[in-house]
């Protein structure tokens, strides 16, 4: 059976070059970067070189990169560590309503710790309005965090504009660029942010490795307490092979970024056009233009996401959904909800995220298998039956 992976937002495959780069560090170069001998020297040199390459991907300085174990950890570190470091100045935090759970739930923890958190709403495209951010800030605001791009609906936020209003009000600005870095151009200087999270498994690097870029001179309270690794800011034996993998992935991402964007955007446009024309009552979610190159996210009316995923899976196609039924907690995606999408529509959420190993054929295959699946589920759907009756009645 044909197998088509259209779930690159969940995790990308690792590029063969990246695995090759990691292998020596899984095999022979096993030293601990903290050790005072040849093995340690080599490991130290290796991760310092990697730090430079990862910094270069986002226009930062090597000394500003702190490696973490995931994007989630980078976000926990940034939100909790920056808030704690600033708490003598104020205890108010602002985040957007569509942040990833690793930001959202870190902010919830801060609330338990006595901080106050304001969520800024988004519009129907998932866009954060810099004016809204300004309005939500007070004298007491020490930290604002708005994600660079949303992996679920693809919308890219106006980070530079938001940064301007945040800096004017004198707060720190963090952006979760886990879905953006390595995929679209991200430059910390141009963005004007103080901290930025990224993760390798979003740009064809390995799992288990992320980074927090922290502007030089910015104080942060360590999240992982322990040894003196990462300049005393993130304890734990450095994950050398994964760091090397992130380095290689960053290098390739930087090198091929524009051609990747071109290819993926073209595929995405093809997918969006074909799905929209082949399947009636389909809504494109997220911003039509300001969106991640590989992101094609929809709501398919009258049917539910999980059952679509299961039937797609039976045809070898991997995708994802923000429907309530696909979440452990049985709640529709907070992102779709914040965008004002009614719950019964959000139930039909279906996300295709294209990646480097997708081709036009994959899109063609999807467009071949998806309509019968939708048909079949709609034939089974009491909602669709009602709709048809009402339509018929309306004739």
């Amino acid at each position, binding site marked *: 059976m044909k197998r088509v992976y259209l779930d690159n937002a969940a995790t990308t495959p690792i590029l063969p070059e990246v695995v090759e780069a990691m292998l020596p560090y899984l095999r022979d170069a096993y030293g601990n970067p903290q050790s005072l001998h040849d093995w340690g020297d080599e490991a130290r040199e290796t991760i310092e070189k990697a730090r430079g390459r990862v910094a270069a991907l986002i226009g930062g300085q090597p000394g500003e990169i702190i490696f973490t174990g995931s994007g989630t950890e980078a976000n926990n570190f940034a939100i909790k560590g920056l808030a704690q470091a600033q708490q003598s100045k104020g205890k108010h935090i602002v985040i957007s309503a569509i942040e990833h759970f690793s930001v959202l739930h870190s902010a919830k923890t801060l609330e338990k710790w006595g901080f106050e958190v304001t969520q800024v709403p988004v519009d129907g495209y998932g866009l954060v309005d810099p004016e809204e951010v300004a309005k939500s800030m007070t004298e007491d605001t020490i930290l604002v965090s708005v994600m660079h791009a949303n992996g679920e609906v693809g919308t890219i936020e106006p980070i530079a504009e938001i940064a301007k209003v945040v800096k004017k009000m004198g707060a720190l600005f963090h952006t979760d660029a886990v879905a953006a870095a390595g995929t679209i151009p991200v430059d910390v200087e141009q963005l004007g942010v103080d901290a930025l999270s990224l993760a390798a498994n979003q740009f064809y690097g390995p799992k288990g490795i992320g980074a927090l870029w922290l502007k030089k001179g910015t104080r942060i309270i360590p999240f992982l307490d322990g040894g003196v690794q990462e300049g005393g800011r993130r304890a734990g034996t450095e994950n050398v092979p994964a760091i090397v993998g992130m380095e290689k992935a960053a290098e390739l991402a930087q090198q091929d970024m524009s051609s990747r964007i071109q290819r993926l955007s073209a595929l995405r446009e093809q997918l969006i056009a074909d799905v929209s024309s082949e399947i009636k009552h389909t809504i494109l979610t997220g911003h039509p233009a300001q969106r991640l190159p590989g992101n094609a996210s929809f709501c398919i009316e009258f049917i539910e996401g999980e*059952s679509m995923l299961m039937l797609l899976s039976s045809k070898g196609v991997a995708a994802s959904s923000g*429907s309530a*039924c696909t979440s452990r907690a049985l709640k529709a995606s907070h992102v779709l909800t914040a965008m004002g999408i009614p*719950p019964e529509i959000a*139930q039909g959420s279906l996300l295709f995220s294209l990646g480097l190993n997708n081709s036009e054929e994959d899109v063609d295959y999807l467009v071949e298998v998806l309509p019968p699946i939708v048909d079949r589920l709609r034939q089974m*759907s*009491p*909602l669709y*039956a009602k709709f048809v009756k009402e339509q018929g009645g309306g004739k």
Partner: protein
Amino acid sequence: MPIYSEKVMEHFMNPRNVGEIDNPDGVGEVGNPVCGDMMTFYIKVDDNHLSDVKFKTFGCGAAIAVSSIVSEMAMGKSLEEARKITPALVAEELEGLPKNKYHCSNLGAQALNKAIDDYLKKQGKEVKSRRRGKNEKE
């Protein structure tokens, strides 16, 4: 490790008794799309037995499989026996359900029960109607 048992998958992929019944003897609708799942059961009753059961379901894989197996379990049963199809029995028949999907097995049993209620109510009504001679007009 698929999240569903083989039996769930089999019923999801090949659901029995999908559809509506024209002029059903009873209809039961439970859930709503806002909560995630919605099921409508249609029944035909002959001689106190379910001579036909059909359903339409909006919802997850579990909801569809539950609907299918409930329709299968109910088919041909007397109304009293059909009432004994509990959520636990449904889950068991499906060789288990993920914890957070148990509510689907509730929904299936509920929808069937509601359809039977509806039938009984209609029965009562029709009897009443007959008394008022209303039925003859139709």
